[in-house]
């Protein structure tokens, strides 16, 4: 099968989707977090009645509005791509993807047309409490709206709550709550939204730092820094806790992603946690030789920390890339060769079932019952996607197995950049809060520059998180069931290149518009509103 795959098409389709998703994700996190910061600021205004807080709230609300307006509907492009570039995937996922996206669309529409309208148009037209309620509901609605797309994404990382209908080739949801509350969905939502809170807190601190650097709007900046740093500290602790939960889930459901993110080539008990490292020679066959894969390794000085994080026990075994590929009988890990064999068997049964035209025949009933039996689902269909890598030629099969390993350096570096910056942000929030409550923020040029620089760093951490989640799970579009090569529509790669360029131009234009308007509004300051 792999000989017939146009990898140029697959790679361009992936690049197109990555470009769209990553640009979309440039706009979303600020909306998620800044909406709550606005709600906190307005709550203080309503409780104290001090007009200064209204002025502060309105200033940040304008910046929220700019980001929201530029970013709104950028995610719709992703839905276009499903039908055109990922039609096999779209068909295969059936209603599981459609239901959450429909709920998201309806929620977003009602939220945007009511609560946001009251937020922007309702000053002095509705009561203070009604306006405050609208601001809170905007924050809650934005984050609940994000829930549904992240539930769909969580399902792709860990497909549960469904059964595959062999007659329609579609997955059908048979347990909504299992889809909604699966650990992957819960960790996706909590970790992703809380990372947006951290980013927004850094945005407020960064812009406030610029005001302090320019010796403008000092009171607004100081008050905003206090709110943002408290919110940032709480969010950082929350993002670390949800990240820990996410790591535990990934270790169980996507062990290859965890091994790649941690640069763990050979599994071990008492597995160490790498604080940072510099990788060398870890692609293709090099993965399986005994050479040292690191030019530099910096471990957390607590033996078994990774085991402890994953299992709650320092002696727990964490599988490495080699264990997952070659199998490890002691720990009950099947080799990729065995999974490919089983997946291929599942695919052949499905093909045989499909080839029988008379659905009332006894032969059809035999294959149907076999395909839908619990034993078959657990031991064969579970590895359905691996079948795409089957080849009767052993040499080709061995080469195909290497394609089941994600890009290790990219996953590894993105993961460590995300985690490292996450802890750095917590420190930044604590320093800002300490100096703000002691009224020692004046004349701290180094601190202001740190605050300003932390804005692009927050976006870097945020995008790195997506790279870990999406590159780390390759080659899977739906974990173990559908690889990217099977999901993609077989259309000309030149068509995909064209839309890639069009998207790149459109989204870049939107980003430039956002930055230009945002900078202009910040320069104007609250008095310009």
């Amino acid at each position, binding site marked *: 099968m792999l000989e017939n795959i146009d990898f140029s098409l697959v790679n361009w389709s992936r690049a197109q989707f990555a470009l769209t998703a990553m640009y979309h994700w440039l706009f979303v996190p600020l909306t998620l977090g800044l909406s709550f910061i606005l709600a906190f600021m307005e709550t203080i205004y309503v409780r104290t009645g001090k007009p200064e807080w209204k002025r502060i709230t309105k200033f940040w609300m304008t910046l929220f509005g700019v980001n929201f*307006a530029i970013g*709104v*509907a950028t995610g719709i*492009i992703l839905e276009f791509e499903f*039908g*055109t570039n990922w039609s096999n995937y779209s068909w*295969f996922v059936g209603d599981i993807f459609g239901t959450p996206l429909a709920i998201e669309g309806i929620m977003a529409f009602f939220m945007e047309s009511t609560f946001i309208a009251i937020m922007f148009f309702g000053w002095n037209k509705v009561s203070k409490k009604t306006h405050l309620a609208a601001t809170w509901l905007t924050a809650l609605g934005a984050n609940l709206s994000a829930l549904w797309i992240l539930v769909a994404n969580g399902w792709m990382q860990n497909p549960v709550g469904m059964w595959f209908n062999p007659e*329609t080739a579609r997955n059908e949801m048979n347990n909504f709550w299992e889809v909604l509350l699966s650990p992957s969905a819960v960790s996706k939502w909590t970790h992703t939204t809380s990372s947006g809170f951290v980013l927004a807190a850094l945005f407020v601190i960064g812009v406030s730092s610029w005001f302090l650097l320019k010796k403008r709007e000092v009171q607004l900046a100081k008050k905003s820094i206090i709110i943002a740093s408290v919110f940032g500290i709480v969010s950082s602790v929350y993002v670390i806790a949800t990240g820990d939960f996410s790591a535990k889930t990934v270790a169980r459901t996507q062990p290859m992603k965890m091994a790649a993110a941690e640069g763990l080539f050979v599994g071990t008990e008492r597995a160490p946690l790498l604080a940072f490292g510099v990788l060398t020679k870890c692609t293709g066959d090099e993965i399986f030789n005994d050479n040292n894969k690191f030019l530099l390794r910096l471990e957390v000085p607590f033996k078994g920390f990774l085991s402890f994080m994953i299992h709650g026990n320092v002696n727990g075994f964490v599988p490495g890339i080699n264990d997952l590929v070659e199998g490890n009988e002691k720990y009950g890990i099947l080799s990729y060769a065995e999974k490919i064999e089983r997946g291929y068997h599942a695919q052949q049964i499905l093909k045989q079932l499909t080839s029988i035209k008379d659905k009332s025949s006894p032969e059809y009933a035999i294959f149907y019952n076999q395909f839908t039996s619990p034993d078959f689902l657990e031991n064969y269909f579970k590895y359905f996607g691996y079948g795409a890598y089957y080849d009767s030629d052993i040499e080709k099969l061995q080469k195909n197995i290497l394609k089941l390993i994600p890009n290790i350096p990219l996953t590894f570096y993105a993961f460590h950049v995300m985690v490292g910056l996450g802890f750095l942000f917590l420190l930044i929030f604590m320093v800002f809060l300490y100096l703000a409550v002691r009224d020692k923020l004046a004349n701290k040029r180094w601190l202001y520059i740190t605050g300003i620089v932390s804005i692009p760093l927050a976006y870097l951490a945020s995008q790195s998180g997506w790279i870990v989640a999406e590159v780390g799970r390759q080659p899977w579009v739906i974990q173990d069931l559908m690889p990217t090569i099977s999901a993609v529509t077989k259309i000309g790669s030149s068509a995909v290149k064209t839309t890639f360029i069009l998207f790149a131009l459109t989204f870049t234009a939107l980003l430039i518009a956002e930055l230009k308007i945002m900078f202009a509004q910040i320069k104007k300051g609250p008095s310009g509103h």
Partner: protein
Amino acid sequence: MGWIKNIYQFYYQGFKQMTLGKTLWVIILVKLFIMFAVFRIFFFKDFLGNNFKTDQERSIHVIEEITN
């Protein structure tokens, strides 16, 4: 019916008094036009919807695509 008039007035006045909001609305409308009137119509056809007549044909095609 008074409440409908109030809601209409609320939105009407809100839009009328916008300053920066007008620029943002222009950006939103241009963006939506490009997405739905250009991208959607010319570049993003429903592949399975356009190339196959029935769901059965679609499912057979997808099974061919996802099996080795």
